[in-house]
């Protein structure tokens, strides 16, 4: 019996009150936009897509009102086409490469057209895929996020029997628990999960591999294993006061507001620490939940931020504050609750190993920012302890090393997604998961 995870999603969730940043197109809007597409040959937008979606072809199909064919074109390349349509940083990928940019004409809104086509398929219950003739092979997939979902879907279509093992109660990975709700809400992530379940993918939740089931058990029960475990929990800075009420990991805050209710009214002022996309997401989300004063604190300058420029611009438009060259050194509190963040001014010196100029504290420049909430978006830990349990798995700074088939140092193990790439986009995870599925299939057929 296939589990219906959508049924398990709480109805009261903070994210439900946050509106779409890029609302769905009506048919009229989609046709108008699709008809603007130049239908480039060997299109640059395709080259910018990690999953090689034939973008001009699907847009052409929307324009001829073959919307079903548009959805098929997308999902053939990327089974996570629904979520990628909404969560992809298209400005930095396909849309950024649209040739209209060369003409100073607004580029085609590829993400919104992709959403239009894929939602059409979902809304009309159009399932394009079915399980292939049973090969009798079982594959365990550790983690129920985008990499495993893409890998499992491909395996099922071939005819293998994939089983996803997810530690959370709900599958979908960061699509369910971590993506900004103004891009994608948990229910749409779970719709996508259900679509993939239909193809013949089994999902078991609440299972911590390594604790609830050992790798040895997995190796004896399954013919191959895919690791799509993502990254570990939020990193903290190990400064005093991190145990106060009001100090959080940013992903925990996001997960709470997506799957439960987050009591934004308790925090009239909030600080997000970090300069990446999780930090920017958290800044925008807390603002949209109604927190009047949200400040991002980052130890380098705007130029060194790893977060996308377009996200920064939107956050600014929405009224967020930015405190650059600022390093938190202590969270201050009263009665066990956060009241402020003590920081020190930084200045940039020589470039470090990442090529970015490294920040140095300016002696005697300490100051305090009043706040009721501090959330750390300073990166996620790696799952080194977990991976150490697998013989032959090779790691690079905690990231699993794979070959071009997605295969690890242990030939029975394959991997993809954040645990391999260190934390990229859903679309990268989808591409890596699909690639690993082909590698697994070759492995199971005795190719390697």
């Amino acid at each position, binding site marked *: 019996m296939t589990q219906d995870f959508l049924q398990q999603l709480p109805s009261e969730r903070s994210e439900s009150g946050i509106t779409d940043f890029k609302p769905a197109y009506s048919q009229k809007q989609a*046709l*108008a936009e699709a*008809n603007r597409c*130049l*239908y*480039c*040959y*060997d*299109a*640059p937008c395709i080259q910018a897509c990690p999953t090689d979606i034939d973008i001009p072809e699907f847009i052409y199909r929307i*324009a001829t009102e073959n919307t079903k064919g548009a959805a098929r074109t997308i999902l053939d390349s990327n089974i996570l086409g629904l979520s990628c349509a909404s969560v992809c940083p298209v400005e930095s990928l396909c849309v950024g490469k649209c*040739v*209209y940019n*060369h*003409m100073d004409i607004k580029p085609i809104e590829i993400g919104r057209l992709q959403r239009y086509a894929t939602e059409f398929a979902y809304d009309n219950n159009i399932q394009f895929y079915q399980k292939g003739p049973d090969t009798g092979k079982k594959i365990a997939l550790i983690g129920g996020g985008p990499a495993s979902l893409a890998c499992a879907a491909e395996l099922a279509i071939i005819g293998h029997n994939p089983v996803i093992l997810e530690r959370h109660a709900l599958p979908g990975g960061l699509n369910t628990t971590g993506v900004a709700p103004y891009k994608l809400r948990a229910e749409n992530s779970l719709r996508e999960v259900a679509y993939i379940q239909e193809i013949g993918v089994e999902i078991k939740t609440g299972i911590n591999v390594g604790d609830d089931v050992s790798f040895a058990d997995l190796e004896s029960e399954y013919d191959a294993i895919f690791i799509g475990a993502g990254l570990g929990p939020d990193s903290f800075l190990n400064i005093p006061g991190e145990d106060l009420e009001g100090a959080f990991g940013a992903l925990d805050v996001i997960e709470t507001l997506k799957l439960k209710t987050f009591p934004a009214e308790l925090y009239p002022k909030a600080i997000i620490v970090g300069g990446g996309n999780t930090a920017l997401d958290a800044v925008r989300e807390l603002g949209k939940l109604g927190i009047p004063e949200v400040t991002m604190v980052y130890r380098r300058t705007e130029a060194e931020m790893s977060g996308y420029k377009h996200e920064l611009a939107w956050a600014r438009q929405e009224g967020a504050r930015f405190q650059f060259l600022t390093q938190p050194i202590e969270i201050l509190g009263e009665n066990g609750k956060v009241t402020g963040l003590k920081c020190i001014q930084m200045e940039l010196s020589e470039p470090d190993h990442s090529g970015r100029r490294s920040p140095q504290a300016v002696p005697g420049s300490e100051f305090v920012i009043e706040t009721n909430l501090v959330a750390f978006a300073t990166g996620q830990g790696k799952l080194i302890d977990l991976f150490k349990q697998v013989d032959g798995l090779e790691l690079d700074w905690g990231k699993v090393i794979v070959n071009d088939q997605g295969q690890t140092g242990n030939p029975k193990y394959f991997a993809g997604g954040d645990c391999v790439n260190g934390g990229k986009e859903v679309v990268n995870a989808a591409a890596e998961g699909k690639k690993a599925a082909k590698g697994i299939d070759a492995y199971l057929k005795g190719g390697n």
Partner: protein
Amino acid sequence: MADLRSNLAGIKSPNPFWLASAPPTNTGDQIMRAFDAGWGGAVWKTLGEPIVNVSSRYGGMDYAGKRLSGFNNIELITDRPLDINFKEMKEVTRRYPNHAVISSLMVETKEEWKEIIERSMDAGANGLELNFGCPHGMCERGMGSAVGQNPDVIQEITSWAVEYSKVPVIIKLTPNISEIVPPGLAAQAGGAHAVSLINTIKSVIAVDIDNFVPLPNVGGKSSNGGYCGPAVKPIAMRMVGDLARQVDFNIPISGIGGVSNWRDAVEFILMGATNVQVCTAVMHHGFRIVEDMIEGLSNYMDEKGFQTIDQMVGLASRNFVEWGELNLNHKVVAEINPDKCIECQVCYVACWDTAHQCIHIPEDSRVPYVDHDHCVGCNLCSLVCPVPECITMIEVDQGKPEMNWKQYQASKA
């Protein structure tokens, strides 16, 4: 300021923009509002024995999201009593003495022609337009295009009208024939003062692919209609040009067929029309479009140094020749401006798949280039290129004298 006044075979109007005989000219009220908006003339919705219309009546052809690139109708001539039509016409001609009011007519017998022409003149019509073009409904009853397809009948009925009329007679020609010249010459031989063309093209505009009924749908059935709108302009201009360049054709032409703006009007005039008639664009956007037509034409004439419309008439039709007179030694090749190219490669795939395989992509760039040795100068790449002036056709001196097909054939003999 250019003088936009128009004179078609003695019918004067403040500008060359007339409303064609069609739904926009169904009533006196509409025509007076059109005149107030700026239209120079109006050809009344065709008068005759009132008919009964069907519902629905119109069909549209959209292209790439643009509504009504083509349009068709299965509406017939006026369905209002002649008494009311002529009463209204009298009022319009009295109130708008400087505008052209043309009475469009379609009846069967000589007696009927005589009567309706006299009633038109009584109502003050400045001219008559004999509808020999309607390709639906009326032709099944021996009128409209059934007349326009038979030069002998055209000539005979024209001569009746000219005999009874004291105002200029325009013959409206149908495009539903293989050659437009014989009907045009027949009208001239019958004594017509001008011709107008084209009437609508016999057509099926679209098919409802869910219900398997052609459109427009009349209770689950349809019938052929008359096609018009922007998409028919090339056909209309060819026919206007064919007549304009005919040496023994000497009466003026009122150009009709897809005229939507001042630029279309200029093209028709350059191809030999003295004025133009408009319908579909007005049915799409209302009478107000004439304001831009007047201003755009005036600006164009000022820019080009034309003082009057007459100076423009036929300037392009004199360069409209038989294919056999074209210079075979003239050569152009395509040139792609790499600074303007946006790298869409639409020109590449068009040339490679469907033209002459002479556009290539270098290994180190997305900007295509043209192999001039193999380019035949077909224009396709420059037509598909989305960037203005990115692909231009440049002339290549062949070092050969001008030679057309006839001369080429002679040289081979």
